[in-house]
């Protein structure tokens, strides 16, 4: 695995001067992911914050080849690029015979869990040698904080607003990482930019595999989460320590490994409290919701431990 010193010299495939918000998780994630890629990279990007902030014509923040097609088809698009690479390499065109590439797609949770889900599932099932990175900030942040199927229960969004009758989003988030594992693809993982070593190792592993891989990365959104810009990685760590966002990997669909077990699993309040989107949950009448969320988190953590063989 590359050292931090090595990574710092490799950085630069995603340049500064992009127009992402201060404190945005996506920029940090992209830099970490691309730094971990050793080959030239072709990036496909779903429509979303990352894409609209980094490619405002005639400028681009990408020092790699980059393609944005539409909202829901980053996975299909990169699979077309990868298919072209295999074909052109086989046909010895453009001097690609000895040229390796890393093919990486980036999508937000909306473009991945929801509208892009079919295209992602199809690309994974077909077995393209691509890495799909979801930067999951838990809502359609680019269009004004609407709920997605990745939005956590209770979150106040513009389409799941906390009102007099309904206290924010009423459903738990879709556990896409598990769904991707159910594709029985070689490598699936969940990661976070606060744990850069873990993320870097996972990206290196994913890119070394001859087949499709998927990494779901928690991405702080100060605007949507209603958190201070400078607190992003601290809050991300809380997500991991409360087990809201466990760090784990799944190989070939069944082989679960927990990558981080908090010594003291912190209560979910500590994850919810600093975020303005959960403010209403701390009213006395919503106490039962926090209990419900805690129970869900505990059950899921236990299930992951069981799958990883950590408990019987």
């Amino acid at each position, binding site marked *: 695995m590359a050292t931090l010193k090595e990574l710092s010299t490799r950085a630069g495939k995603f340049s500064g001067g992009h127009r992402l918000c201060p404190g945005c998780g996506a920029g940090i994630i992209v830099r970490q992911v691309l730094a971990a890629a050793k080959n*030239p990279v072709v990036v496909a990007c779903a429509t979303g914050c990352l894409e609209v902030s980094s490619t405002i014509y005639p400028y681009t923040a990408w020092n790699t*080849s980059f393609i944005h097609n539409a909202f829901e088809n980053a996975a299909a698009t990169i*699979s077309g*690029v990868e298919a072209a690479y295999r074909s052109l390499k086989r046909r010895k065109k453009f001097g690609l015979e000895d*040229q390796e590439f890393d093919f990486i797609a980036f999508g937000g949770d909306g473009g991945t869990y929801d509208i892009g889900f079919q295209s992602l599932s199809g690309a994974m099932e077909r077995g393209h040698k691509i890495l799909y990175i979801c930067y999951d900030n838990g809502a359609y942040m680019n269009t004004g904080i609407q709920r997605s199927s990745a939005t956590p229960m209770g979150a106040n969004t513009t389409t799941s607003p906390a009102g007099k009758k309904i206290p924010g989003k009423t459903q738990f988030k879709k556990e896409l990482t598990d769904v991707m594992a159910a594709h029985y693809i070689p490598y699936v993982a969940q990661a976070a930019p606060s744990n850069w070593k873990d993320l870097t190792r996972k990206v290196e592993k994913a890119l070394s595999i001859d087949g499709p891989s998927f990494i779901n990365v928690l991405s702080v959104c100060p605007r949507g989460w209603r958190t201070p810009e400078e607190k992003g990685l601290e809050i991300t760590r809380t997500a991991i320590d409360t087990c809201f966002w466990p760090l784990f990997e799944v190989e070939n669909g069944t082989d679960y490994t927990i990558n981080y077990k908090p010594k003291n699993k912190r209560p979910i309040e500590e994850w919810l409290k600093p975020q303005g989107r959960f403010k209403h949950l701390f009213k006395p009448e919503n106490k039962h919701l926090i209990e419900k969320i805690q129970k869900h988190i505990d059950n899921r953590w236990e299930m992951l431990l069981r799958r990883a063989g950590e408990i019987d």
Partner: protein
Amino acid sequence: MTKRIALTGNEAMALVMKQINPDVVAAYPITPQTEIVQIFSQFVADGEIDTEFVTVESEHSAMSAVIGASAAGARAMTATSANGLALMWEVVYIAASCRLPIVMAVVNRALSGPINIHCDHSDAMGMRDSGWIQLFGENAQEAYDNALMAVRIAEHKDVMLPVAVNMDGFIISHAVENIEIVANEDVRDFVGEYNPERYLLDVQNPITVGPVDLQDFYFEHKRQQVEAMKKAKNVIQKIADEFVNLTGRKYSFFEEYYLDDAEIALVAMGSAAGTAKAAIDELREQGIKVGLLKLRVFRPFPAEEIVRALSHIKVVGVMDRAESFNTMGGPLFSDMRSAMYDGEANVRMINIIYGLGGRDITVTDIKNIIQKVKDVNNTGKIENLVIHYGVRE
């Protein structure tokens, strides 16, 4: 070197795709196009061809994948019909705006709803304003020939636009014809190698494709697409002129059938043009001065040339195999009337909407339609601007 063999339209299309030997084909099955990808996948399975064949999970992903492949530097093709084309619609626009020379076979079929698997042109008309060049063939031979020429048109430096090669579902796609096949080596020579100026897999020169394009540049890029479409006219003709040397088959924007001395005429696209020719042959024997303009190139619309070809005609019946629900006629009719508006000639026009959802159109039907055009010529009166021919009222 050519040879004659009996093939269906779909077989001819799959064969020409094999001969073109594209780098990548991504496709999803849909009636009546399905056979094309089935036959093509058998070629791949049998090792007759080493195209990278991507079996996507939807037409949306088929078009998305060929966009990725084409942007990467590959010669990429796909095929579809009807609802599949409608599902691609969003990305069909993106293919054109990224200036990617993709070639797509469109086996024309009615667009739902209600669901109907048979031929009309509502699918092709749905992509009408997407910035694709659209070619229509009268039969399997023309579908085959158009596909060959489409590769050259799309990849021409002055054009760099995707091309849709249309053929009527079932009527052409599933009917067997004797067609003349170009020899493999001649196909290879004719289409040549695709050498893009910029592509994603160019390690030395990474590029950004499909950026955000705001108020300051979007309009200019649309204008550039229009310029490419204008230039496409010359390129289409130039490549047709080369094609005649290869095959002896002569193509232009349209075919003029007995138009020179005609008083009345029909305008049609696709297989109905063949039926119209048979009807015109019979009527000509009776001394009726009727002709046909069979449109091959629908986008770019060859307005000037059409006006020239029809300027001496008194009444034209424009045949549309699609509705546009503007209550003023079908999409071809709108373009035709628009083209004629500034013409010096006094050409009158009526619109015949026919054959929706695969409703049969026979030689007798065409003769009846010509009679309606003749009536307008005789009486000088247009009683019905738009006729839905063959529908039970």
